[in-house]
């Protein structure tokens, strides 16, 4: 018994320049906000960009984008709808407002299915919004997506960084390409995360302050791109 789906993934992703997974061992550090804003920033720069939400049990990017009333089209595969210039894919198209209680094996299966049937165009970048943790989704990207790169998000808190550190060391051990660590909702200026990132031999991408205007901007692309948060994302990740 062979699962044919894995055999087509290379071909499905073959026309994509770079595939970047915005990831964190820790939840709630801003992965979804960074991934979405990063993707929108790249669109503004004129790149062809896709955004793929792999956080199946707590998807957020559709809320950040305000992506209502869109749906993929079924052709010789699934064609992602274009939202604010982004080719956009999320399991939420199929789960709507229902809870999606998936065990890890189901997450893995759904992920493989979506990679096998989604037809992206010639993208310069595919940005992936990851679920928290280092479980099925991360392990599947490592084994199935040849040129995957991880961008790791942390906050300034020890509680986030302890976990992120373990994740970063693991990715290094596995020789998986890691762009660097981004410190989000940065709390003070002691440079502690930056220093520790250096000790890990990883690139510190920069720090982004907590921006109280972000919450209001969720669901409104123009407002979001006008926030100090988005300007900082563009400054740090605008030329990836």
């Amino acid at each position, binding site marked *: 018994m062979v699962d044919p789906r894995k*055999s087509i993934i290379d071909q499905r992703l073959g026309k994509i320049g770079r595939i970047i997974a915005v990831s964190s061992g820790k939840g709630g550090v801003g992965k979804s906000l960074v991934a979405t804003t990063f993707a929108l920033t790249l669109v503004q720069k004129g790149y062809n960009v896709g955004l793929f939400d792999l956080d199946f049990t707590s998807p957020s990017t559709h809320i950040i984008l305000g992506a209502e009333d869109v749906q993929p089209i079924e052709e010789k595969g*699934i064609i992602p709808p274009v939202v604010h210039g982004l080719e956009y894919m999320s399991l939420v198209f199929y789960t709507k407002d229902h809870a999606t*209680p998936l065990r890890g094996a189901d997450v893995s299966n759904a992920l493989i*299915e979506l990679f096998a*049937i989604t037809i992206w165009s010639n993208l310069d970048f595919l940005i992936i919004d990851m679920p928290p943790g280092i479980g099925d989704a991360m392990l599947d990207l490592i084994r199935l997506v040849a040129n995957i790169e991880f961008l790791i998000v942390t906050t300034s808190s020890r509680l986030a960084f302890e976990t992120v550190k373990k994740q970063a060391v693991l990715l290094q051990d596995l020789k998986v390409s890691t762009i660097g660590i981004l410190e989000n909702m940065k709390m003070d200026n002691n440079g502690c995360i930056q220093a520790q990132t250096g000790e890990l031999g990883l690139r510190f991408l920069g720090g982004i302050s907590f921006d109280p205007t972000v919450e209001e901007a969720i669901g409104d692309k123009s407002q979001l791109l006008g926030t100090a948060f988005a300007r900082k994302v563009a400054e740090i990740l605008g030329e990836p």
Partner: protein
Amino acid sequence: MHEWALAEAVVAAARQIAKKEGLKEVKEVVIKVGELQQVELEIFEFALSKLEAQGFEGTEFNISLAKTELQCRVCEHKWLFDKTNLAEDTVEAIHFVPEVIHSYVRCAKCGSPDFKLLKGRGVWIERLRGAK
């Protein structure tokens, strides 16, 4: 129509298997299609026939359906998938990504969404018959 994408996957996998096993010619690819995914067989077969051109000229694609068996992890109740009482949207969602069944279907005995797909999920290759 995304059956085409699944057919492409089958052909790509068959090519890989044939290469790995050193087959010069693939005579038959035995394919199982789980009922859960509600694959439209005509489209799937049509896609396979078109894809045959790509190195599978004489190959027979032998497709058969498999019932979908589910088992509850809470009460161990087993049952067969039946779309009769599901909304059209739901059946379509399951058609694209079978796992979303966990958002819509519950164990008939205890109401849990925590069940396993014992068999009959999607498309898989049972075996290849070929000549070296």
